[in-house]
């Protein structure tokens, strides 16, 4: 765990020590702000809860894209810059590398999400929503970030270049996103299974509307665990061959 925290601290330092982290965060906040303003606040008469739902919808989309972009540099970036050898030849376990990278990425995504908190609070100016709804919505964003980041980290472990990593991550996340539409076109029991895999339309919808379901939490934790485990095994196979 000590090594994981060490790697996470260095990674977070690299976000803050270069313009990349600030630019990415600024662009994400700009997109979320525009989304919230034009689709939530000025589109027409909406209930406060609906406005909050629109905000979380935009935040979810931004989070998925941000996770894919952020994860590409976590391992493929190290490989591309020739610094992976530092981790490979240090007495550090692959699981510690993965945990450190994941913690750093999740901290960054959570921080970006936290910076948007003023938007739901703006709803209180002319409306009323429950704090519980906001908290559940943010929990959904963090869980979505964790799952998307784990998928991206797996892609980053597979690829030798960041471009390939983001393409693989985009493809995997695209499948988990679009599986909802495939499910709509199929019959039970297949569609039940496919709906269950949908990372956004089915699993995130509950959080957006303020409904906390254990099965949705388990889904995101399960996806994150599965892809982090796969990332660790991929690194083991690539490190020592």
């Amino acid at each position: 765990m000590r090594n994981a925290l060490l790697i996470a601290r260095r990674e977070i330092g690299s976000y803050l020590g270069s313009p990349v982290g600030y630019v990415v965060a600024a662009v994400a906040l700009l997109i979320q702000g525009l989304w919230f303003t034009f689709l939530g606040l000025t589109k027409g008469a909406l209930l406060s809860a609906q406005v909050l739902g629109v905000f979380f919808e935009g935040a979810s989309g931004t989070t998925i894209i941000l996770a894919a972009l952020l994860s590409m540099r976590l391992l493929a970036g190290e490989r591309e810059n020739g610094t992976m050898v530092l981790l490979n030849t240090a007495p550090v376990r692959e699981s510690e590398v993965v945990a450190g990278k994941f913690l750093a990425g999740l901290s960054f995504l959570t921080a970006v999400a936290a910076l948007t908190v003023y938007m739901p609070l703006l709803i209180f100016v002319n409306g009323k929503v429950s704090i519980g709804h906001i908290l559940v919505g943010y929990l959904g964003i963090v869980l979505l970030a964790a799952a998307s980041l784990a998928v991206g980290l797996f892609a980053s472990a597979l690829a030798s270049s960041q471009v390939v990593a983001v393409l693989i991550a985009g493809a995997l996340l695209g499948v988990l996103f679009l599986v909802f539409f495939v499910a709509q076109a199929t019959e039970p029991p297949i569609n039940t299974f496919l709906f269950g895999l949908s990372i956004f339309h089915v699993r995130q919808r509950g959080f957006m509307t303020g409904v906390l379901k254990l099965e949705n939490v388990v889904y995101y934790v399960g996806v994150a665990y599965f892809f982090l485990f796969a990332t660790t095994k991929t690194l083991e196979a690539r490190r020592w061959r």
Partner: protein
Amino acid sequence: MIEINELCKFYGDRKAVGPLSCSIADGEIVGLLGLNGAGKTTTLRILACDLLPTSGTVIVDGIDVVERPHEVRARIGYLPDTPPLYPEMTVRGYLLFTAQLRGLSRSQAEKQVPEAMASTQLTEVADDQIASLSHGFKQRVGIAQAIVHRPRLLVLDEPITGLDPVQIVEMRALLLGLKGKHTILLSSHILSEISETCDRILVIKNGEIAASGTEAELTAKLMRGHVEITVREHADRGAAQVMAATLHGVREVEVLPPTEAGEGVTTLRVFFTERDVREELCKALVGAGIGILQIGLRERELESVFLNLAGPAKATSEAADEIEEEEEPA
């Protein structure tokens, strides 16, 4: 310190290294010399526990690198051919990170980082961003990260390549300064780069050790074969004629472009039959009134010692090297 026995590494069905056997004693500075594609980097990566050997054993400080790689990694400081640096970090921050990554506590790291910076003359740029440093300083940071945890073995892949002449002199001094504190194995494809630094040179060719010895021993091998001599000749009798008339040990004399300007100055390459007849050669020339301006092997010739020993790499090794490069983005 290092015992390598019948080490082989294949990339698919292409041989990169092996069978390679050698041993390196505690405290030695040994140079691994070979042309590009000879298998130097692969050998060093196996020693640094970055690559798994296909067969054979590699023991570092009594520990098998395949069976207990984690313990070996903690004992080794490794500098790949391109220093693994994070450009956005400061020198001090980077070294603190690498020291802790190698198992030091924060307080130990804070104590040892200034020492590593002092050894590598980085103290003046301690708080500079790595991105802003020159190539020579970056190379020093690479060495500092390799020594910061005081490893017993230092593995340096081409630490001098790409440096300018002043930086090469500084790097040699730095490496000599590390002597006694670590056992050092470093690689190069240029003999003159490491000949002054290393106690012993291992010449690697097609993944195998082609020769081993000090620079003097390797040079002597070629000196037995031929020598270059620059003389100031008389108008009536040439040096070649003197040699032909008085020496049985001279097999052939080849006239080369003179190495220095002057009237009557001639440079000859003299091939011996079997034994070294340099002494007789000098006596005969001086006896005939011919002045000897220079005798020996020029630095270019020393390189040819290496080229003769290392020879051209086989196509398979070159292919393997390409694979290495693909795997290890520089």
